[in-house]
């Protein structure tokens, strides 16, 4: 078989094997890829970063296990950013099935900070630095209700404390005290936040979503309804880059590690397409010559 014929008929299993290899190796060897942050992610970063001391950030962790790979790194990066810069954080989930993942991300990041803390001031303390509101069905109830009073909707937090007795909640009454809400989701939840919380109460909404919904959500960012937008693993990697570069946040960069796999995978696919076309080109020329 000649070379160009080989290019034309590469066995699918060879393609699969190479793809599997280039995706797995960077994951095992953990080499994060430096990325250049783009403006939709930068705007989200700046909105969170510029939260004044008397306001808070809400992080809505409404992502299902199926999309965890894409969205969980966003939750972790956001939490690290907020805790590092001492922003007040409210965490919630709109669906009970998703509360487990929210708890996991929260515990992980709080643990990271507290394992390094030397004094109570350095630590991240529940009720002073963050509050986990848990969930309150159906989604529309908290979306609308928090516009008037957060502690009236979440009377007790996830751990059963009276929400209005927590120190941090003293200055946080409703959306007027929330600088931005970041919705992490794989569905149309961010659009509901705009429809209910933004249109009625003027809440700023930032979004982290999967690569599939990215194309649908981009117009909302363009019109300014979304303050910022993180799409897929790449968006998460850009956020990781921003918090490391500008705020010196350290920690394992899961999305940036996956970026290398993602890049190699794309390049491998592109190379195979090129190889196929070279083979096709040569064989067509030979055919013409023989005619």
């Amino acid at each position, binding site marked *: 078989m000649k070379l160009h014929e080989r290019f034309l008929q590469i066995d699918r299993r060879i393609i699969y094997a190479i793809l599997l290899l280039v995706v797995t190796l960077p994951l095992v060897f953990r080499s994060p890829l430096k990325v250049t942050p*783009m403006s939709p992610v930068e705007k989200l970063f700046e909105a969170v970063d510029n939260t004044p001391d008397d306001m808070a950030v809400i992080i809505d962790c409404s992502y299902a296990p199926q999309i965890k790979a894409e969205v969980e790194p966003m939750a972790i990066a956001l939490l690290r950013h907020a805790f590092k810069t001492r922003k007040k954080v409210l965490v919630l989930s709109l669906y009970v099935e998703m509360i487990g993942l929210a708890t996991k991300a929260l515990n992980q990041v709080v643990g990271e900070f507290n394992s390094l803390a030397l004094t109570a001031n350095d630590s991240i303390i529940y009720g002073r630095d963050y509050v986990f509101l848990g969930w309150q069905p159906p989604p529309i109830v908290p979306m609308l209700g928090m516009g008037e009073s957060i502690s009236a909707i979440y009377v007790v937090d996830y751990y059963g404390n009276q929400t209005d007795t927590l120190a941090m909640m003293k200055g946080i009454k409703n959306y007027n005290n929330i600088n931005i809400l970041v919705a992490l989701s794989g569905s149309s939840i961010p659009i509901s936040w705009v429809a209910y919380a933004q249109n009625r109460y003027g809440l700023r909404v930032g979004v982290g979503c999967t690569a599939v919904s990215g194309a649908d959500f981009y117009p909302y960012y363009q019109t300014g309804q979304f303050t910022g937008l993180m799409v897929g693993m*790449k968006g998460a990697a850009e956020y990781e880059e921003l918090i490391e570069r500008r705020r010196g946040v350290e920690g394992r960069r899961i999305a940036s590690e996956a970026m290398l796999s993602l890049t190699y995978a*794309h390049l491998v696919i592109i190379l*195979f397409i090129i190889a*196929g*076309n070279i083979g096709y080109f040569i064989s067509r020329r030979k055919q013409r010559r023989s005619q």
Partner: protein
Amino acid sequence: MKKTIPLVLIFVAGLLGIISFVIPHPAYQTYDEWIRNSFLRVLSAFAMVLALGSLLRVHFDKIRRRRKNWQYSWLLLIAFGASSIIGLFGGVAADGILPTAIGSFHFDIQVLYENIVIPLASSMFALLAFFMASAAYRAFRVRSTEATLLLTAAFIVMIGVLPLGHSISKHLPMFVQWILNVPNVAGQRGIVLGIALGVVATSLKIILGIERAWLGGGE
């Protein structure tokens, strides 16, 4: 009669569907809600009995006649039987009469779903990554104008969405967004308009009894 009654019913039901759009009055809407949420959902549940009957029959038959790969049918039947019993008697939230845990080992239907159905489905989704690669390799050849367009657009987008895209040109990611928002939307909208007209026409034909393939055989 065997055809007339169904045709009359489909016409009446179709009118009810259209009317639900026209009349907003609660006197009608509460009744419409009952059709949707009670009547039609109950119907779909009964159809399920029929379908599962088909599934079971095919596999029992396979076992009885010792057809090729009949052993696997046992696996399906056991998995189906066990999960149905756990689901029906153990309850959706492990709140039924059947105990669904031995010590700290839980096996209620939600656990089965999360640890069997979700990983299996996620793995099928993971297969897609490989299939995209082989499909792109096979089909993206410059053999015709259409194929070349397909290839070029896919190429630009695949590079443009990578961090690499930004280092090639600052405008590349913007260009990707533009392709998705302008030419892509135009093409899609043209297709959607055509589809919508087809949907309206076919729906009309069904309600009026012109399109009656669904009646199947018999007189």
